[in-house]
């Protein structure tokens, strides 16, 4: 039902929304502004939002001092790879949980989610050692596996929610029509859940791209993605805020652009099932 809103109310809610958005966006804005400042004005006290001496020097230096394209490529491989591998495992899993649930399916889902509550540091040593023994340290495949496992509960949960929305009768109809299990998943379930699968994919690429614990712990040079690229500017000579900001801006820009163009899909995916 539509609710009548007075113009005054509309202006107030719009202002409030802008204020909240600004608060959320402020750190990013600060970072981007800082990346164009000199090191001196970046640490000026009291802090200044704007400065007189804008410069591109930080970007030039960051680009010149490190191999940005390599880090970027590693990020792409790791985030897309872990998401695709995760989907390949999660689609059949979520199918089973949504359409042929057992007595313990709900418990299993809760257990999977609970693993996300555990602090990553708690398993850092065992995982590091396992990676060391299996030769996966500083390899892209190692990170693909690690990030896939880390995000798998979320992927399964999201897909499970989308699949639950698909009427079981349609899948039964495909079975009556002679579709094998594979045919059912490929020809009916996947196309019907495509918007949900796309949102899941986008969200997980973003999560994997931004992941900064395992990617730093499990890499040194060869497989290091952009998170490690940022970290490399914070040590050991001390903190250089302007350069760090420039590196951070370069690291988040690709994913920010991806997020910007897919925001409709993302929002739709995240509110799927909540609003009918």
């Amino acid at each position, binding site marked *: 039902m539509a609710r009548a809103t007075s113009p005054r109310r509309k202006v107030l809610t719009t202002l409030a929304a802008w204020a909240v958005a600004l608060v959320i966006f402020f750190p990013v804005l600060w970072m981007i502004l800082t990346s164009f400042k000199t090191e001196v004005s970046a640490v000026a006290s009291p802090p200044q939002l704007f400065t007189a001496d804008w410069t591109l020097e930080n970007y030039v230096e960051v680009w010149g001092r490190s191999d940005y394209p390599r880090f970027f490529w590693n990020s792409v491989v790791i985030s897309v790879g872990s998401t695709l591998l995760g989907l390949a495992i999660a689609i059949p899993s979520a199918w089973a949980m949504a359409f042929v649930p057992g007595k313990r399916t709900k418990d299993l889902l809760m257990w999977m989610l609970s693993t996300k509550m555990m602090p990553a540091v708690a398993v850092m040593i065992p995982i590091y050692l396992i990676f060391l023994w299996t030769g996966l340290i500083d390899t892209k495949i190692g990170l693909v596996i690690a990030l896939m496992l880390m995000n798998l509960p979320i992927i399964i949960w999201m897909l499970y929610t989308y699949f639950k929305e698909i*009427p079981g*009768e*349609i899948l*039964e*109809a*495909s*079975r*009556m*029509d*002679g*579709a*094998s299990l594979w*045919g059912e998943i490929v*020809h*009916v379930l996947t*196309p*019907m859940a*495509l918007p949900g699968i796309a949102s899941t994919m986008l969200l997980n690429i973003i999560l994997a791209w931004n992941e900064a614990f395992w990617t730093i712990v499990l890499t040194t040079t060869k497989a290091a993605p952009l998170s490690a690229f940022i970290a490399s500017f914070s040590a050991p000579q001390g903190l250089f805020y302007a350069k760090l900001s420039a590196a951070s801006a370069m690291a988040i820009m690709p994913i920010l652009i991806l997020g910007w163009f897919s925001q409709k899909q993302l929002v739709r995916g995240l509110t799927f099932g909540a609003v009918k």
Partner: protein
Amino acid sequence: MGKIELTKVRKSFGDVHVIPGIDLTVEDGEFVVFVGPSGCGKSTLLRLIAGLEDTTSGTIEIDGKDATALPPAKRGLAMVFQSYALYPHMTVRKNIAFPLKMAGMDQVEQDKRVERAAQVLNLTSYLDRRPGQLSGGQRQRVAIGRAIVREPAAFLFDEPLSNLDAALRVGMRQEISELHQSLKTTMIYVTHDQVEAMTMADKIVVLNAGRIEQVGAPLELYNTPRNLFVAGFIGSPKMNFIEGAEAARHKAHTIGVRPEHIAVGDGPWEGVVGLSEHLGSDSFLKVAVDGVGILTVRAPGEVGAHHGDRIRLAPAGKIHRFDESGNAL
């Protein structure tokens, strides 16, 4: 060929015995209707035949071959669902062709069969639309089209008309009956609507609490119901049941008189008209008869009796007699 034989078929969900044990034979080419109130197990029985549910015990034979453990796709049956269950992302053409594609049929033959089905079902001009752009009746036709292209051994219909409005329902009912006449393929049709059952079936299976109450031709069930349940379920409006002294006079625990078998005019029963509905073709009266109870009367044409009038009634047709356990005498 499409003979289906159920032997001692049982289905339980945990401790709930939905079908405690059913034996039934559906002959090749027959139009069989499973009818019964909600929760009587009729849809479950259909799903067992389809293979969408596993039997707890018992055997299902299709054309003499044991199909109990076969997956749905291998049983050679086609099903039309209550919700139509069309593939929303495919055009009508692709929906109808889907079972053929799954069977690996070549494209030329697929197109030929789809065109033929579309012609039979008046869908030719809708072939490139999606299900979302069709009306309820058209969707139902697509669902039927998807079923007939496979040329199955038998069709299974699970309350296919219950989502349609009344006028469309009558039309589709006739279309399905005509389809059966022309295809002469076995059809099993589930409904809770006894009018559908009476008008379409060669054979009606009345189910109650997972048990078969009676199997027979529509008029056989109407004329000689085996027990109170069937007597009450078949026929509209429902049969009047009378107990007490009036029943004892007929040497029965309960007697049943159909509303259309009571005449208004002179007779042994006298009472006051409560509700009266005048449809022109028929008049329906609820009459509180002294010493008998409330009787529903269906009189042909217009009857000059209205609320509060005192009228006399007479049984003018078969009086059905039942014993204490509800079985017909």
